[in-house]
């Protein structure tokens, strides 16, 4: 029994192809799911799908028995996760089967008729869709096309986002299309666009095994991106010289593997990045040749505001500068000044500068919401790119500034399809006449159909709902009445007379409770889908099981709505000649149209990106592959962009080309430190930061219905530093009242837990519908990206009575 297993015995197992082996007389079962689940769980039908949760984009093998998902395992053939999953991934078999799944349309009714003050009452699809279409038409008649708004997410499949974009922009002639990704990735997008002229990371997950240093800029990857954290861990254990630096505003699990945890004051990352750039220049640690050949310098406006007031407008005015101007610009960011702003010791700053500056050290920088949910989110994205550009540590194996994503298709759907008010597919913009013309040509609509002016970004859309400029608001695959900042204002806005709220969702939640109509949605493997992850990997899945009751996919819902709005033909022509293959388990949308709707939409969408660096493979290739990273040219995916030999768009002999910009150069930006709009004071002495925990995802609609996750972390906590707790006389588990200028919640204290904020800060995750922490948050945003800052506002902490 106790005999240890030898290396030779392992090898004999031949890549784990047998279920059990005999060692020392006893039978040792291999972990069944990693060995051959197909033998251990006989009778299951297995097929691949990307995970439903974060932007890592793990591939999952889904086991189906009698029309129900009963098991999952990590997809051994996926280069992303290579057979493992995190605990959320392993909980996927539960997310479709919560006992309160929505299975019938609901209309708020009194005395049998729609009434804003009525009760949600079961109805048929026909009645619900007719009412939804009527209210959209009324809104458009009253206030114009922009009064009818659709709010989707990075959890839409690619074709759902594409259908919504086409219907809104080419059908309804409205740019009132936004997504929750505005609150998640908008600063990443504007960071990429302003620096590289093209969205999304240049590197990929292949880079992990080459890197020598990992720098986390406010990203707790140990909890939020576990499978990528596993890749970092592998590298750190393999290479004793490899180092991790955890730049953070709170102690967290990511510090456990770190050479150094560097705590900094909220917002001061701007000063830290400029301080590192200054040291690189001062110490002669820049790659002058790379900078001269491949970079340009710019500065933009300063003192740009925070978007707090209704009607706020901002337009940056970039001005070309040069290396000398940049040198003068960063000169004030001395280690001493950086310490004053950030609290970071000069030695730590110098150590970071040495890591970025050492030509032999390959560096990966990572960030997610810490940098994106930031009133200077675009700027801090620019500033971290500066460090990689100054040192030439970019677009080569192991050297990459890596913007991580939070949703499974934040990249694939919202960014690549462009489901924002100002965007069109493949990085194109409604404001650009050539881009509009191309979209109108592909969509087969007359010139001038697409409105050239964006209408509302996410926060503006909520404010417009409050002011009565948006009268019809339809949310899909997101929970905006739990997840929006300054929630008090916007929940009340939804309840105002004359506002019509439609919520397509899978379970009752904080958004369905303010809805006039609730539409039951099919989810994940109940439909055919496609997601795009953080490394530009597009992944498809097939429909595997039926949706419960009368639940229908968002795609079916959008297309049925399109018909009722008089735009059925806009889609019918996309499906012409797209026959369903024999034996294909057709989605509800395909069944309704008698055509392969998903293929029709995808092949049409593909035309937007071909030939200018956004090339996607033909539809059928993705059902065969375990994901492909764009650009896919001549059947070959691209692991690294902008580097000759890796990226087919880089001309021979160029070495490197940042071809997203016309001059082929990436921009090094002069962006100063500017203070956040609300800082703790005598009345509200604590910083509040919100975020996630490992076990839960976003607003918890799915994860709170998965028993292993719900039981692991049942309720949101208010995490405090032990010294602050002692000062306030608070004990762990005590009920607290947290108050900001905008609202209050009660929540129980967690002291010295896995997340311990620095002194003077409280951390509250937002997954818990019983702790609406966004009633406290501030709807200040980055003026360039218009992404809100959920990480910084001022609150008071008291013991709840």
């Amino acid at each position, binding site marked *: 029994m106790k005999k240890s297993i030898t290396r030779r015995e392992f090898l004999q197992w031949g890549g784990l192809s047998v279920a059990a082996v005999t060692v020392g007389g006893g039978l040792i079962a291999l972990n069944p799911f990693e060995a051959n689940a197909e033998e251990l769980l006989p009778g299951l039908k297995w097929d691949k799908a990307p995970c439903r949760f974060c932007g890592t984009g793990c591939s999952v093998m889904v086991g189906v028995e009698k029309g129900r998902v009963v098991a999952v*395992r990590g997809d051994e053939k996926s280069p992303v996760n290579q057979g493992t999953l995190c605990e959320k991934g392993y909980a996927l078999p539960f997310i479709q089967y919560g006992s309160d799944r929505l299975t019938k349309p609901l209309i708020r009714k009194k005395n049998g008729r729609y009434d804003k003050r009525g009760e949600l009452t079961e109805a048929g699809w026909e009645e619900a869709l007719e009412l939804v279409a009527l209210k959209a038409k009324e809104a458009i008649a009253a206030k114009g096309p922009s009064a009818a708004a659709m709010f989707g997410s990075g959890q839409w499949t690619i074709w759902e986002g594409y259908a919504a974009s086409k219907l809104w922009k080419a059908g309804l002639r409205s740019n009132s299309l936004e997504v929750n990704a505005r609150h998640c990735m908008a600063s990443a997008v504007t960071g990429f666009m302003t620096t590289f002229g093209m969205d999304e990371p240049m590197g990929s997950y292949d880079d992990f095994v080459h890197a020598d240093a990992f720098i986390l800029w406010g990203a707790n990857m140990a909890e939020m991106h576990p499978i990528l954290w596993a890749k970092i861990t592998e590298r750190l254990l393999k290479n004793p010289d490899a180092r991790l630096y955890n730049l953070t505003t709170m102690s967290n699990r990511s510090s456990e593997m770190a050479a150094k945890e560097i705590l900094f004051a909220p917002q001061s990352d701007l000063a830290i990045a400029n301080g590192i750039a200054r040291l690189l220049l001062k110490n002669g640690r820049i790659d002058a040749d790379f900078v001269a050949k491949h970079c340009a310098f710019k500065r933009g406006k300063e003192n740009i505001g925070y978007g707090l007031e209704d009607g706020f407008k901002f337009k940056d005015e970039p001005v070309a500068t040069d290396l000398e101007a940049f040198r003068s610009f960063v000169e004030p960011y001395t280690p001493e000044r950086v310490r004053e702003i950030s609290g970071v010791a000069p030695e730590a700053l110098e150590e970071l500068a040495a890591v970025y500056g050492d030509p032999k050290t390959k560096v990966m920088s990572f960030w997610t919401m810490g940098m994106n949910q930031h009133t200077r989110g675009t700027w801090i994205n620019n500033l971290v790119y500066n460090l990689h550009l100054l040192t030439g540590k970019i677009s080569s194996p192991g050297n990459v500034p890596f913007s991580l994503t939070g949703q499974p298709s934040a990249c694939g759907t919202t960014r690549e399809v462009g489901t924002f008010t100002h965007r069109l597919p493949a990085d194109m913009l409604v404001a650009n006449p050539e881009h509009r013309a191309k979209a109108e040509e592909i969509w087969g609509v007359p010139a001038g159909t697409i409105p050239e002016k964006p209408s509302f970004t996410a926060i503006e859309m909520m404010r417009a709902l409050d002011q009565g400029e948006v009268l019809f608001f339809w949310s899909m695959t997101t929970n905006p009445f739990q997840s929006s900042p300054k929630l008090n204002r916007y929940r009340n806005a939804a309840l105002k007379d004359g506002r019509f709220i439609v919520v397509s969702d899978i379970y009752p939640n904080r958004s369905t409770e303010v809805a006039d109509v609730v539409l039951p949605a099919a989810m994940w493997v109940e439909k055919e889908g496609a997601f795009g992850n953080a490394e530009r990997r597009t992944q498809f899945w097939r429909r595997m099981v039926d949706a419960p009751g009368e639940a229908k996919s968002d795609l079916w819902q959008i297309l049925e709505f399109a018909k009722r709005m008089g735009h059925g033909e806009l889609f019918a022509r996309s499906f012409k000649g797209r026959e369903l293959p024999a034996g294909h388990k057709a989605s509800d949308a395909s069944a309704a149209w008698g055509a392969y709707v998903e293929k029709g939409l995808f092949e049409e969408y593909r035309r937007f990106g071909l030939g200018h660096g956004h090339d996607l493979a033909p539809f059928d290739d993705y059902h065969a592959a375990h994901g492909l990273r764009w650009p896919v040219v001549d059947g070959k995916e691209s692991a690294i962009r902008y580097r000759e030999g890796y990226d087919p768009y880089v001309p021979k002999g160029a070495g490197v080309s940042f071809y997203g910009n016309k001059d082929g150069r990436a921009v090094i930006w002069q962006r100063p430190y500017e203070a956040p709009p609300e800082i703790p004071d005598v009345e509200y002495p604590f910083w509040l930061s919100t975020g996630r925990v490992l076990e839960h995802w976003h607003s918890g609609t799915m994860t709170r219905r998965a028993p292993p996750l719900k039981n692991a972390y049942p309720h949101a906590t208010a995490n405090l530093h032990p010294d602050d707790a002692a000062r306030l006389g608070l004990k762990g588990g005590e009920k607290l009242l947290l108050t900001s200028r905008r609202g209050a919640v009660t929540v*129980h204290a967690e002291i010295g837990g896995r997340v311990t904020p620095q002194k003077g800060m409280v951390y509250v995750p937002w997954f818990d519908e019983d702790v609406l922490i966004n009633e406290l948050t501030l709807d200040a945003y980055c003026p360039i990206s218009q992404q809100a800052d959920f990480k910084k506002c001022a609150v008071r902490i008291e013991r709840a009575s």
Partner: protein
Amino acid sequence: MRQLIFAVMAVAVAVVATAADKKTRKGKIPREGRPGVNRWNDKPPGSTKPLPRPYPGAPPIVPHAVEGLVISRDANACLDCHLEGAEIGEGHAATKVPPSHFVNPRTNEVKTGTVTGTRYQCLQCHATTTRMPSK
């Protein structure tokens, strides 16, 4: 012991998916949340029996407290007991790490004495629980 552990693993557990809440939310808009308090598992490692897996083949749930158990470059508190399935009193052993955890899926390299790098962060796959059976 091992057989018992694997027998437990093989049991298909019918899990009743608990709804997040059974509020009907028809009409009334409750603004006051009812926050709950987390009662973290405080059972010391070694004092509890393995729990049923959520479904066959799912990673085992951690049946004991994890507070203070550090996973760093130099130490892995979980592996101290689970690497070899150490005897941990009252005649039972810690659940042994399965062979799959020693193989690097990318390179097929096999580790001895510790798990492969991508399996090192035990708590990212193995969920903890606040709901231990009463007995």
